């Protein structure tokens, strides 16, 4: 096998993994604060369609991305208002957010189906980005580098900063954090907003980098995979990176296998992904005590401060 094939496989794998990594990083922070947002898929779709529409209209990728992140954050705030302020059930509200995201993105995306835009590609000079060997380092969309930086950023934030400590504390024991004097609801709002922005970014990666076009349910269940990944990574950013790339590799392999005429993942199984992922994630979270998983102790527990 020649270098070029290996390089192209590596690049495909990283490309397929990046949106999962982005969305999962956001969800990890959300869950560390004690909130379970099952609406990633919906927020990703909102991000994807808004990012595509703005970029198509204005021609600026960055503007598209910023507005897309704003839009998905707005949808996350709706979730936050329902679950944190009104203490609605987080699982049900998250599922509703996904259904809402699928619906509204299809509606908003109607006029844009079939149109294409320029790929949001590497900012490095063509001599590096298209160099036969060096492109394995320089040939990615800026979002790939952003996702890596964010992985380290989130890890550093959670482990080393005071704000990260407070966020973990809120997810670990909301009542204790409240009695010491931290704003549990405030911290959770901020975490959910970050999760929303990251899901929007992940959505943009689909519509601006991977395809780059808009079609209904463009994200094809990747939000659910991101969700499952957070649990499998035991809420650790470094394992999240590993898990996302591993999953990207499987998807790429499947793609190549299909092209070669055989398939080892049934399409029905992929279609069932949302439901399977929800069940697996919820089961693993409830198992956390006996299995020794490091799940935040207050995950998905509504918090009502006494006044």
């Amino acid at each position, binding site marked *: 096998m020649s270098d070029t094939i290996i390089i192209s496989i590596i690049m495909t794998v990283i490309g397929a993994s990046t949106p999962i990594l982005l969305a999962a990083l956001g969800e990890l922070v959300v869950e560390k604060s004690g909130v379970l947002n099952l609406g990633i898929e919906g927020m990703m779709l909102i991000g994807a369609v808004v990012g595509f529409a703005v970029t198509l209209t204005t021609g600026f990728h960055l503007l598209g991305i910023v507005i897309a992140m704003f839009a998905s954050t707005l949808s996350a705030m709706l979730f936050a208002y329902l679950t944190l302020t009104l203490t609605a059930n987080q699982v049900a509200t998250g599922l509703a957010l996904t259904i809402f995201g699928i619906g509204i993105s299809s509606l908003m995306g109607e006029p844009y189906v079939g149109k294409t835009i320029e790929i949001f590609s590497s900012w490095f000079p063509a001599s590096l980005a298209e160099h036969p060997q060096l492109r394995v380092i320089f040939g990615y969309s800026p979002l790939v580098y952003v996702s890596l930086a964010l992985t380290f950023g989130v890890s550093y934030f959670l482990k080393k900063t005071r704000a990260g400590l407070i966020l973990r504390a809120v997810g670990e024991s909301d009542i204790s954090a409240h009695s*010491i004097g931290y704003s549990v609801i405030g911290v959770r709002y901020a975490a959910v907003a970050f999760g929303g922005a990251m899901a929007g970014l992940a959505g943009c990666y689909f519509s601006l980098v991977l395809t780059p076009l808009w079609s209904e349910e463009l994200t094809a269940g990747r939000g659910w995979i991101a969700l499952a990944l957070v649990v499998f990574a035991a809420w650790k950013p470094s394992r999240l990176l590993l898990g996302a790339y591993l999953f990207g590799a499987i998807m790429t392999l499947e793609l190549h296998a299909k092209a070669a005429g055989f398939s080892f993942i049934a399409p029905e199984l992929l279609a069932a992904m949302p439901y399977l992922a929800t069940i697996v994630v919820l089961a693993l979270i409830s198992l956390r005590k006996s299995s020794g998983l490091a799940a935040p102790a207050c995950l998905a527990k509504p918090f009502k401060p006494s006044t």
Partner: protein
Amino acid sequence: MTEQTDYRIELNAVTKSFPGVLANDRVSFAIKPGEIHALLGENGAGKSTLVKMIYGIMQPDEGEIRWEGEAIKVANPKAARKLGVGMVFQHFSLFEAMTVLENIALGMDAKISQNLLEDKIREVMDVYGLKLDPHRIVSTLSVGERQRIEIVRALLLNPQLLIMDEPTSVLTPQEVAQLFETLRKLSATGCSILYISHKLHEIKELCDQATILRGGKVVGECDPKQETSKSMAEMMIGGDLKQIEKEVKTEFGEPRFIVDNLSQDGEGDFGVALSDISFTVRAGEIFGIAGVAGNGQNELLMALSGETPSLNAETIKLDGKSVADQTILQRRKHGLCAVPEERNGHAAVVDFSLSDNAILTARDRMNLSNNGMIKHAQARKYTKDVISTFGVKTTGDASPAGSLSGGNLQKFVVGREIMQKPDVLLISQPTWGVDAGAAAAIHQAIVDLADNGSAIIVISQDLDELLAICDEMAVINEGRLSKTLKVGEASVDEIGLLMGGIHGEPSASQDQAENAHAH
């Protein structure tokens, strides 16, 4: 005239009401610098609400709080800490999965580097003689050590007023002595202490002043050193305190409950293994199991009640029948009833009505169901019997268990089992967080049940309670049960040493205690 005041903090006619309840009704008292001031009162008397307002967790509806002569508004705990108010909670506000250092850092408002904080922690621990490893994960610590985290956290802020909410309920006598020493050192530096407890002899020993609350109102102030425990208890409950009527027994009936070499592996990371537990309880006897929390009491209770059945049926014998492999329901049918420690969620389902909760454990013995169909009329009648016999304060059998105050719910869950007339009653922490009046009623009911020929096992961290009601007792430490002691012959010191580990390092860390066992 001068604005100067002798008091560190004054409360003037502070009032707070919740829907349907007046929690604090024009409460006034004042604390001088360096004074150790006791706040006494039954459960539901409004002590917690009051200190929550001082600490800024709640806001008073009316009245004022003056801090060193100046009227202030404590908007939140942060503002309270800024003033110099520290608080050690009854239910610790700790984060189990984090280290001691991280937990303390979370309680600090100023930004401070971890290394500097660690130095400061060690300094405070030296001054007050508190021992802690800053890098241990909280879930591996004993309750006494956890409390030390809270105290260190509060002391690091150089408080002018330290609020202690029921601090000794989980400590060994030696740990209590050590805590008092710390508090006296602190008060000598001029820090005022507001000490909430229902253990009257402790208040007599430690406090300079006491304010007594009943039904949200101040009903008296006294110098605890001039009062007897009985006189203070009577002020607190507003009536005569019933003494427990218990005769010293020397003769008991046949052995009813025999535990023979019961061993069990510890579950998960934090479970305690039980090893070679053996004891016998005879008809009419009350057997006490003392020990510091987290030494295997929960595991033992679950093994004895049937929540975690054992494979070897022979290890537990109930009236001669081997039952160790039976489930909780089977054992209940054979006459073994149990009251676990945690009221909410373990002994009672908080969202269920009292009568539904009664059905859950009394179904078989009180015949509350018929071929799987619930007999609601009987269940309600039984529930009402429990409520009236045990004086449970509630609006009726349909009110949810969670709406009862802690002491009342405890009376209900204890009553629910006792009224089933069990042959063997297993009861853990019967009066945890329960006021003196209710505690006396529960103790009397236990003693009466024993007098009728039942065998009773009481697991408790409250040594006074065990000494008051038990005939014999043993101490559990790290999953091992000590030899059986006769109450009346064993000294508190001896029991305290057993609670701290065989060789008796009262303040010994877990590691030292383990070494002691390794010998």
